[in-house]
């Protein structure tokens, strides 16, 4: 609105003040007037909301009638000079390394776990398996609009414990999450525990040792490659995308999945085509498909050997109505896609009866229904999409948990024993090829 000549002032809670200023800086409006109230207005009685608003009225008026003063400086949003080399001294190398750990972690440049030293030699070595040049900008990474050069990605990959052959996966992942349909800004900045999930297909899985079987989402030595690649993406989101907790990441509680998630599709156990092929890439092309994950719900079914009753169990997990992607399904929001991690036995049961993934999609859509009162409690006509306003006054009406069948996706992964997972999401998946040097 400011860019269209309309003076604007934004009302936020004090909890989100730093985020508001950091966002204004990131999006090019450093001095945007921001007025605070003492606490978030969500889950607050309306009389108190009105009282807060009345108390803030003079400041709101000032924001649109008077020239704003210069905004505060936010250290974490303003990096060192681009060529900065950081030096750490100690009585010996171990002491110097300890100084590095303490400094990086104190600055907020890590995830809390010890970091691998990103020396010049290690970073140079990290970039030897990608055809991209060190100063090539892979993306401008939201929410902080950081320039994701190959070198910056490599620095964070070293810190996470990656090897050079892992960097091409990360580059493809960054390309994918930068596409608008992934909705990275929402995923990264949300008050919810949304996190990106890297799904890898193709020859690179075997080549670099990714785990598609038991414990693919970790922990364990079998998933050591999965672990460091997932971790690197989180460090990239932080240090390149500026998605720092309390600054541009306003997650209320957090989640262990935000440390990193990476798995390979179990192509040997997959009775259908790989998801990368399903999404348009040629067979045999190594690829990543990026999903955003909000919540994970187990699909425990050891009992059913037939497709339809088994599908019922999946539908039960999908009707967990507290999930953001269910609650907001009928709002004016971008697409919110969900992912089913199918255990091999479950996939086999569906395929044995001739079910395709499209059959699964359609049947899950038809079966996963919940009464509106569970989904729409407290929602009114103002926020519900026009074509769904009719349901607001019908609490016992059975509605589907998502707007369209195509918002369900399926990846076969994991070890034996019939436990799948249902993951709700915030954005749409994106698939990109992985490019490596021969």
């Amino acid at each position: 609105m400011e860019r269209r000549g309309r003076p604007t002032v934004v009302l936020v809670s004090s909890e989100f003040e730093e985020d508001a200023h950091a966002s204004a800086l990131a999006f090019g409006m450093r001095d945007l007037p921001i007025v605070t109230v003492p606490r978030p207005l969500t889950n607050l009685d309306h009389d108190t909301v009105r009282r807060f608003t009345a108390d803030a009225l003079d400041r709101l008026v000032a924001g649109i009638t008077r020239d704003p003063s210069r905004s505060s400086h936010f250290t974490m949003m303003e990096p060192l000079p681009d060529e900065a080399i950081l030096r750490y001294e100690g009585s010996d190398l171990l002491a110097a390394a300890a100084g590095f750990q303490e400094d990086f972690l104190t600055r907020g440049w890590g995830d809390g776990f010890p970091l691998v030293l990103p020396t010049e030699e290690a970073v140079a070595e990290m970039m030897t398996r990608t055809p991209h040049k060190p100063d090539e900008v892979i993306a401008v990474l939201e929410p902080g609009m950081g320039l994701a050069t190959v070198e910056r990605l490599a620095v964070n990959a070293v810190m996470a414990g990656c090897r050079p052959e892992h960097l091409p996966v990360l580059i493809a992942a960054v390309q994918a999450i930068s596409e608008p349909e992934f909705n990275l800004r929402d995923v990264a900045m949300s008050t919810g525990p949304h996190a990106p999930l890297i799904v890898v297909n193709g020859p690179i899985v075997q080549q670099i040792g990714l785990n598609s079987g038991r414990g693919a989402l970790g922990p364990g030595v079998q998933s050591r490659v999965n672990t460091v690649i997932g971790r690197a993406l989180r460090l990239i989101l932080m240090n390149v995308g500026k998605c720092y907790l309390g600054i541009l990441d306003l997650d209320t509680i957090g989640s262990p999945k935000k440390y990193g998630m990476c798995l390979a599709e179990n192509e040997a156990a997959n009775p259908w085509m790989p998801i990368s092929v399903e999404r348009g890439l040629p067979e045999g092309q190594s690829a990543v498909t990026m999903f955003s994950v909000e919540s994970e719900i187990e699909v425990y079914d050891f009992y059913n050997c037939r497709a339809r009753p088994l599908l019922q169990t999946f539908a039960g997990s999908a009707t967990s109505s507290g999930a953001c992607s269910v609650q907001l399904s009928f709002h004016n929001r971008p697409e919110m896609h969900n992912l089913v991690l199918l255990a091999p036995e479950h996939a086999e049961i569906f395929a044995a009866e001739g079910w395709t993934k499209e059959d699964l999609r359609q049947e899950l859509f038809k079966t996963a229904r919940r009464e509106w009162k569970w989904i729409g409690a407290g929602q009114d006509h103002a926020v519900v999409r026009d074509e769904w306003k009719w349901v607001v006054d019908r609490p016992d009406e059975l509605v589907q948990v998502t707007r369209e069948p195509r918002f369900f996706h399926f990846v076969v992964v994991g070890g034996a024993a019939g436990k799948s997972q249902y993951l709700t999401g915030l954005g749409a998946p994106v698939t990109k090829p992985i490019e490596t040097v021969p």
Partner: protein
Amino acid sequence: MATITVKNPVAMTATVSYPLAKRVPDLNGVRLGLWWNEKPGGEVALEHAGRLLREKYGVSLFRQYQNFPAPVSAIEGVAANADVVIGATGD
């Protein structure tokens, strides 16, 4: 004494800086846009602010309820129908 040197992990930003719009010194009779991102509580705050400003300054109100990312049509709609804007996120 030993020294370790490491590379900077933090990216430069691509942000372009935009100038803020010229402020409107007198609110009497202006068109006030109320932009709500659909987080509960935000609409209550905006409606109350709008009512108070209408009583004090005679502003007229234009409401936009639109979550992120807002389509260009929504942005252009507010720009066409409001002289000043108050936004509320609810958090």
